[in-house]
């Protein structure tokens, strides 16, 4: 009976994770062709092994892709760090508010999701473009003579990313902070810790698992983000998401695109495994008299 209960999640993983990854892996070792689909299966009964490692080689050899990866990780890191910095005080505020306000406040955090993703980005474009509200306001106040180049910059891209991903950071943090044991903080205060020291030495370290979850929940999707950099970011900046899009839809080089997607998957899984390891090790080890 119990064995059958485990079936649905396994089927789910098989259909939506394992199968697509396997298909990507097959495409990534295929030869490109002009047909539909634009690749030749790497293994056929008639001709045997027809595959190639050329896409993978190109990925490693061309510094263009390495640059895209590093830039994507940097953008994702900056987004996640900014989200964390904004989300922590928000989550603390939710946890510190009276019980009857906690649910409405959490719902407010989710409110942006009630409007479409693209209208939200459109709103940012409207705000930040040369004739947009921000520039009109600055000029109207006599602070700037001409329009500032706000749109299509790294800053505009980060603003859009943080706006889109902030709820993912607030909710896990709020959950952890709401569930925390207040007696432990009272004990710290009782032992002579001022409110700031209580926060630094007890509240903050005990909320780190929530902070890590918040960081990863933002970092992972942000690393592959395509739409926001495309609409708000500088045109010359090539991110992995954009490179993927270009290879798939403009160049129709499916093998290279598949190789890129697999590489991104690997790059994102490795730090998660590392974090998991670190956390397990930290749990087992006690800190000594120091």
């Amino acid at each position, binding site marked *: 009976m119990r064995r059958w209960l485990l079936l649905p999640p396994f089927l789910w993983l098989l259909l939506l994770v394992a199968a697509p990854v396997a298909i990507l892996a097959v495409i990534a070792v295929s030869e490109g062709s002009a047909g539909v689909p634009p690749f030749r299966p790497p293994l056929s009964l008639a001709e045997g092994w027809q595959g190639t490692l050329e896409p993978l080689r190109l990925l490693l050899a061309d510094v263009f892709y390495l640059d895209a990866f590093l830039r994507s990780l940097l953008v994702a890191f900056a987004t996640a760090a900014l989200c964390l910095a904004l989300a922590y005080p928000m989550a603390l505020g939710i946890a510190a508010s009276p019980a009857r306000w906690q649910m409405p406040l959490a719902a407010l955090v989710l409110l942006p999701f009630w409007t479409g993703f693209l209208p939200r980005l459109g709103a940012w474009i409207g705000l930040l473009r040369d004739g947009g509200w921000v520039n009109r306001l600055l000029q109207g106040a006599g602070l700037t003579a001409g329009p500032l180049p706000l749109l299509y910059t790294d800053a505009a891209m980060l603003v859009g990313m943080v706006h889109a991903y902030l709820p993912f950071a607030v909710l896990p943090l709020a959950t952890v902070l709401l569930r925390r*044991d207040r*007696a*432990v903080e*009272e*004990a*710290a*205060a*009782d*032992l*002579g*810790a*001022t*409110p700031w*020291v*209580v926060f630094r*030495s*007890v509240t903050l*370290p*005990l909320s780190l698992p929530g902070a890590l979850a918040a960081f990863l929940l933002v970092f992972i999707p942000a690393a592959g983000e395509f739409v926001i950099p495309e609409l708000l970011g500088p045109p010359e900046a090539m991110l992995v998401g954009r490179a993927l899009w270009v290879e798939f839809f403009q160049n129709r080089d499916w093998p290279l695109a598949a190789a890129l997607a697999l590489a991104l998957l690997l790059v994102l899984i490795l730090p998660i495994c590392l974090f998991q390891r670190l956390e397990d090790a930290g749990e087992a080890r*006690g*800190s*000594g*008299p120091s």
Partner: protein
Amino acid sequence: MAEPLLRLAGITRRFGATLALDGLSLEVRPGEFLALLGGSGSGKSTLLRIVAGFEAADAGQVLLQGRDITALPPHARPVSMVFQSYALFPHLSVFDNVAYGLRREGVARAEIARRVAEALALVGLAGLERRRPGQLSGGQRQRVALVRSLVKRPPLLLLDEPLAALDAGLRERTGLELRALQRATGAGFVMVTHDQGEALALADRVAVLEAGRLAQLDTPQALYERPATRHVAAFLGAANILEGRVEPDGRVACAAGCHLRPAAPAGPPGTLAAFALRPERIRLLATGAPPAENGILARVKDLAYRGDGWMAVAALPGGGEWRVALPAGAAPPAPGAAVALAWAAESLAPLAA
């Protein structure tokens, strides 16, 4: 008399419409082990939290060694508290837990290491410095919580149900260790408990709280022998309550169907009087007839073996039941049998209300 260690004056605390503490005043003497005893809702935990500074009193003053600390935040108060849940820092080692308070005081590292080692050795936890609280047993955690507070050498230690989370077997031994620690450190202890056995066994004095007021504050012996109110008598050792009207000759005509002759006059004739009579103060007479005063003929309704004796429930001619403790040596009466009961005049403890 020396200045009290802690003086609470007219402490009042309201939660919405309920009055948790109603103008409560009491004093704790230096080096004293005081128990705050009461049922749930008696206000004992709220009182402790007001002394620690986690709750603010709506009215009243908290004075520690003569200094008014009513307005001080918890971290500025020299008192320390042991929490019922222990509230150890789960992310810190045993050493760092105990060192936490000393670090806040800015004590030098070498001194911290020395005092923490000393404190841990005192409660038999030497060698566990590097463990996390999650890797300790309940008893060990309790002792870490205790020395985490004691290592700061507070003049007054507050304990919120310190034994409640322990196994029954561990509770008595830990309680005695707690008292030995209190004697050794000379600190004043104020322990909140709902367990009367714990309070009587460990404390120098017991404050019984009832509905936010102090019902009685006395030594365990006096409290047990001379309960001041019906509530105290019932709460401690489940005493029998005897009520009646004072007669012209000074005796009290008890509603249960007997005449009481208390050691001291109960009051002017015609007034109502109430007494507490402990189950173990009632004797079973070998003769079938009870004395005319301080005695009654009752019927054994029920009998329960207690190991160290029997507890009999005796039905009275005037209605109602008494609990009678019978020593193990004698053969118990059969259920349904009529028994003659008697008690000494001194065993009748007059009750105020």
